[in-house]
């Protein structure tokens, strides 16, 4: 289906335009069209469905190049499309590391070949993710990179991060440094949130203060340099407090939170389920509640998946030996609808804003996140907010290490539209 069509009778939620109402959406030749295009267009009944700008993920590991046994750009973007995403930021910790323009370009080329979802490669902050020498920001910025991250680890010294936040300002006011905030000396050898549970389970901890320390340091540096800072996968109540205060003081900072940190706590690790091992770890229920409140009030700007695929045999291992991470692209929307919207923690409009409009803006993905207005690229997600499903393998992703395995979620993607083309229809990828 392409060319000219009309979604009829759907509930359109378009945070960029401040719209939440039942209306028709016409698409012609890959862009949103005005009402005049409705005549003769193919009619698609969207009664009972929600139409929103395609989702935008600030944080996905597509694993290519280097770890194609876990995921590839193609399988990862297909999973993204299946989850309603039309834009995904691909993290830099590949092999080789995306610390130069040629790796960045290669990832973008692979995404373009697949044509399932727009990919925005994230560049490394330091060469080889080694935390010492700045990566070539200028060259990567010229190649279109807007976000830089050594995700997996915090930049180890304040000095290097200070230089990064200062230096990037030469190449555009919209460039952003994204930090994985965990103090390496405190989390070394740790496998879960430090607390009552880690003590009882005999697992070495990754304490909450490891995040707070780096967040405090990074906010001080962002304030001092004027550089733009983004905090990845915020997981603690006190980090939220620090961000709230910094925002009130005018520091240029944004923050993301994952569906799994909004859903689970360290109490969900009693069975040593390696799919629930991730960095930062699942925290206490107090932390989770603070994250929910922060997402609702905007202290945390966006929901990001931290989609981290691993091979089955890598995760089917002893807890302390299994690699950290959960996949998330296919479950993020439903998890947010089920865990946050349904119980009333956030409105549906705010959920869409946090999954689409705001992350697209942070990423500089101007074709994404709405507004759904005539002339704009037709990047859309259509979902059934009522349909229930159980999270089960196999996934569209190559991996199956989902923290949500077995969960019953409400809300299912019906269609994903990328520049007018149905990359997902009837809930299934079209190719």
């Amino acid at each position, binding site marked *: 289906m392409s060319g000219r069509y009309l979604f009829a009778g759907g509930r359109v939620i378009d945070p960029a335009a401040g719209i939440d109402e039942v209306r028709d959406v016409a698409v012609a030749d890959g862009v949103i069209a005005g009402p005049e295009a409705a005549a003769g267009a193919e009619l698609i009944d969207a009664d009972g469905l929600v139409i929103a700008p395609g989702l935008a993920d600030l944080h996905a590991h597509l694993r290519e190049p280097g770890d194609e046994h876990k995921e590839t750009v193609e399988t990862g973007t297909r999973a993204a499309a299946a989850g309603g995403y039309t834009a995904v930021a691909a993290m830099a910790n590949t092999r080789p590391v995306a610390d130069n323009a040629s790796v960045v370009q290669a990832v973008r080329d692979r995404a373009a070949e697949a044509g399932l979802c727009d990919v925005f490669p994230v560049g490394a902050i330091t060469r080889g993710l080694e935390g010492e020498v700045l990566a070539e920001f200028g060259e990567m910025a010229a190649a279109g990179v807007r976000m830089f991250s050594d995700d997996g680890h915090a930049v180890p010294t304040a000095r290097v991060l200070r230089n990064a936040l200062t230096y990037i300002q030469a190449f555009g006011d919209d460039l952003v440094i994204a930090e994985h905030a965990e103090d390496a000396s405190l989390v070394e050898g740790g496998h879960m949130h430090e607390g*009552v549970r880690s*003590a*009882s389970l*005999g697992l070495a901890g990754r304490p909450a203060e490891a995040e707070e320390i780096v967040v405090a340091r990074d906010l001080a540096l962002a304030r001092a340099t004027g550089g733009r800072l983004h905090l990845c996968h915020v997981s603690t109540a006190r980090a939220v407090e620090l961000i709230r205060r910094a925002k009130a003081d005018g520091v240029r900072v944004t923050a993301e939170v994952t569906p799994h940190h909004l859903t689970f706590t360290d109490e969900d690790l009693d069975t040593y389920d390696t799919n629930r091992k991730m960095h930062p770890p699942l925290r206490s229920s107090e932390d989770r509640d603070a994250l929910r409140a922060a997402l609702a009030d905007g202290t945390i700007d966006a929901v990001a998946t931290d989609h981290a695929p691993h091979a089955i*045999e890598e995760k089917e291992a*002893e*807890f302390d030996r299994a690699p950290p991470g959960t996949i998330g692209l296919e479950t993020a929307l439903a998890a947010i609808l089920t865990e946050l919207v349904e119980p009333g923690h956030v409105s549906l409009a705010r959920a869409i804003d946090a999954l689409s409009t705001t992350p697209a803006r942070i990423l500089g993905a101007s074709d994404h996140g709405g507004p759904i207005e005539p002339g704009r690229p037709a990047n859309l997600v259509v979902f059934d907010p009522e349909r229930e499903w159980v999270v089960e393998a196999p996934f569209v992703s190559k991996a199956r290490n989902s923290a949500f395995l077995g969960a019953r979620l409400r809300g299912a993607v019906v269609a994903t539209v990328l520049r007018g083309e149905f990359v997902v229809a009837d809930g299934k990828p079209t190719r």
Partner: protein
Amino acid sequence: MHEHVLSMHDLTADDVTRILDTAESFRKVGTRVIKKVPALRGRTVVNFFLENSTRTRISFELAAKRLSADVINFSASGSSVSKGESLKDTALTLQAMGADAIVIRHSSSGSPLQLTRWVDAHILNAGDGTHEHPTQGLLDLYTMREKLGRLEGLRVAIVGDVLHSRVARSLSFGLVKMGADVTLVGPPTLIPPDAPVWGVHVSYDIDAVLPKLDVCYLLRVQTERQRLEFFPSVREYARFFGLTRRRVELMPQDALIMHPGPMNRGVEIDSDVADLPSAVIEDQVTNGIAIRMALLYLLLGATKEDPG
């Protein structure tokens, strides 16, 4: 009885009593000239030890043999595990060979529980990482009950590196379950900050705790270099937390001294203290066989199959 023995945490007080009572009857077998009963004839017990152990492995081996089970010892060095085979694949192999019970010792916390998801055999945890060592905890409870006649109300101090000790976890959980009064003693860096949630007291002053004890249980101090970030020196540890002759004088006359072994004489326990009559360390070892016989019997003895 449960299908597996994974942790003291899983057991109820009634389970513990039943296991100790069953061990009581097996204790007598060990004193006979012919130390063998036919209870598990034809059953196969695999000792799957992926971490060095002498006493626990031998104790399990003796326990299984005294019950007439076939015993296979499988340890990390020279095995498929050292060739990179995964825990799951190795366990499936043991299962395919007809293991009825797998006794596992592993450096990774939680690995016995993970094993239960992959194989049908009964799993017995012989120590997993810094999580639990339930058979050690049970033999300690047995020894205390044997010597002091009860567990309820006993005042027990567990002294040392509680943070990294699976023995301390199993024993604490077991004692609290049975109504004993437990105090964890050690340098603050080696006591989990949330330990009071377990229902125990915490003290950093051993001299203040010793006069009010029925049992002083000493943990082995790990002296590897990486442990030394938690306390400055072995010498300082011994001075402030070691059980010296002088400190024994602070204890009530009939109080017991226990240690899971192997001991560092001169560190957590002075050499002459370890040899006092109130130090029941060898009884712990002997009772360990009876406890493990009881567990194997309770898991495997009531066979569902009719051999006829």
